């Protein structure tokens, strides 16, 4: 591809219109709501949104006859995100091929949470990534817990986080003792997948441009977006942006993309900040000792060797 899709080069160039508009019931400072906004802005008006159950379903609407979505939006069951996207993509293709609908480029974006994509809907997501429907983006907004139901651990909850199902207690002090599942690597394991990326809300245009690339990649795509969650991570609402920035700068969240079989790091923290700058600002890690935080930092340091190696090779090496 010599001429790719046109990307956004500066904040002043972003589309001024929101398709996920004001007037929703998400938390003040909600990272997921912000991501919803940025993604739909990047996708534009010819877009269909699918919302599997989760915060971004229950919190978003709830007041009947009012809706924050200026483009079509349909709720789907928690485990059905993968199937929902495929169903709509198949319908549009069939109707267009058979002359029952005007041919047109329509984006389909399924906004699944970590519960919806990494746990209950994992199988359906994987099925979807084996198809060839274009302009079909599976976007995982990962706030690292079932935040909607009151912060229960999911398989993307990081080690050491306290949640209501894995509370830090007097005997079991660590909280969650499972390690965070790397969903983007799992997505990249689908042969011939066109586009896989990780993102968060920092740096400013990274997420929006990745959405544009994903939608124009010619096949189903997957973006794993780290989503700061004031309610679930225990920080004050105004710190949402700061936490995303620190996740990237401490190397705890690795920004990369995998496009047409080529791996590339999008951000190399130099020098990498100690993970305590990120972890100590969140109440969910408050019970961890300095030694434990250091241990996490060492783990991150170790993994980064492989990330850098992958970047050099342009191919993915498992970082553990």
């Amino acid at each position: 591809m010599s001429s790719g899709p046109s990307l956004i080069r500066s904040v002043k160039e972003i589309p001024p219109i929101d398709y996920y508009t004001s007037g929703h019931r998400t938390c003040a400072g909600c990272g997921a709501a912000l991501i919803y906004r940025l993604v739909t802005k990047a996708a534009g008006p010819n877009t269909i949104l699918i919302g599997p159950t989760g915060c971004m379903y229950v919190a978003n609407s709830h007041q009947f006859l009012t809706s924050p979505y200026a483009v079509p939006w349909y709720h789907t069951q928690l485990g059905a995100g993968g199937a929902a996207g495929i169903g709509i993509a198949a319908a549009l293709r069939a109707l267009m091929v058979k002359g029952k609908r005007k041919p047109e480029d329509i984006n389909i974006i399924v906004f699944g949470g970590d519960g919806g994509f990494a746990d209950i809907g994992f199988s359906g997501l994987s099925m979807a990534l084996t198809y060839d429907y274009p302009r079909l983006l599976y976007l995982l907004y990962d706030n690292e817990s079932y935040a909607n139901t009151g912060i229960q651990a999911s398989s993307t909850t990081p080690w050491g986080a306290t949640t209501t199902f894995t509370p830090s207690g007097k005997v079991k002090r660590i909280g969650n003792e499972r390690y965070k599942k790397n969903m983007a690597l799992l997505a990249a394991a689908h042969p011939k997948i066109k586009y896989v990326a990780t993102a968060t809300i920092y740096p400013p245009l990274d997420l929006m441009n990745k959405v544009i690339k994903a939608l124009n990649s010619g096949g189903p795509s997957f973006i794993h977006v780290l989503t700061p969650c004031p309610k679930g991570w225990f920080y004050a609402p105004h710190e949402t942006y700061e936490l995303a920035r620190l996740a990237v700068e401490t190397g705890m969240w690795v920004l990369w993309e995998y496009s047409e079989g080529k791996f590339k790091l999008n951000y190399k923290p130099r020098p990498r900040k100690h993970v305590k700058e990120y972890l100590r600002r969140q109440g969910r890690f408050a019970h961890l000792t300095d030694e434990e935080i250091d241990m996490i930092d060492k783990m991150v340091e170790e993994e980064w060797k492989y990330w850098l190696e992958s970047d050099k090779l342009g191919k993915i090496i498992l970082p553990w």
Partner: protein
Amino acid sequence: MSAVRPVPPITIEKPVAKVWTGARAIAEAVKLADVDVIAAYPIRPYTGIMNAIAAMIADGEFQAEIIVADSEHSQFEVVKHAAATGARVFVGSSGVGLMYAYEAMLVTGLGSVPVVGVVGTRALDDPGNFGMEWTDAFTTRYFGWLISWPRDVQEALDMVLVAYRVAEDHRVLQPHFVALDGAALTHVAMPVYPPTKKQVTEFLPPYRPPYRIDPMDGPVTKAQHIAPSLIGPEQRKRIDVAMLKAKEVIIEAWKDYARYVGREYPPFIETKWMDDAEIALLSMGAYMKDIELVVSKLREKGLKIGTVRLRYLRPFPAEELVKVLSGVKAVGVIEFGFSFGSPYRTGPLYHEVATALYEADERPKLLDFLFLGGREPKPEHFIKAAEMVNELAKGKTFEKKAYWLTLRGEDI
């Protein structure tokens, strides 16, 4: 609202019978209906339908997207979303597969998405069992799906076509499945007269829901979370009324089907020998054939017995059933489903029939005959059932309501 069409002069072409299994015949109906999206996942006995459809698509007999899903849940969700987007869809399952799709079926019904599918009824696990039971289909009674039950392969094909017409009517807009008795219909080949493409095109208008999930229809928000103080019973009422209206739409549709295709069916209940019947056997589906054979023989011996076949379980034709059974002294319900621990340890069809008859001025006495575990009943079991119903009519007291005639051991 679907407009009433002017009646054209119809010339019925001389039909040619094809010997087809139920699976093959249903596939033909799907092709004739020009379905756009199909989602498949294998489980016996319904799988043959999808095999046949997939072969047709592979050979270019018709155009559709066929999705090979990762589970029944995904399968039903795929078609739900496709139908909400404006595509005509087809889906199906059997037994525990249907149970796996339960949640997806539920939201299809409550979201008023007119999906059409087939359930090849099958005994539920555990243990695994290829035999036929109705419990899989019966458990979905609550979800806002229309449910019809054909007697043979011909009717199965016809019912699928009519299902599209009824489900997609704007007065209804609810999903619809046709329950085929597993193996007995899915896997037995019988002579079938498929309608022509032209007949189907005239009978079945293109699918066009009022609002699609498509940017062309504007910012449509579908199925958002609600606060029940603001809205709640109002949304449920619409489905309740859709089921009510479905009855008039079903009557219209079968009338039109006869007009365009030339085959007539009574819409809700098919009766035989009921004009002077004092007792009756009531059931649904393929085994009606044996039941009717048995009853015809018993009539030759002078027994005033008739048969009642329900063609629809949802909407349930309660008023029609009361009319048919008024004046009848005793009725035997022949069924293949269980609901353990239910009133009088009877089956789900019995519950439906008993509820309907409670409103009758003169209620017939009822007995339930349960054929469970997938073991097939034979004509002698129906003879036994008819004899017991006859004794009931004559005043004999039975100590229980439900009998397991194919059971070895004491039926306590």
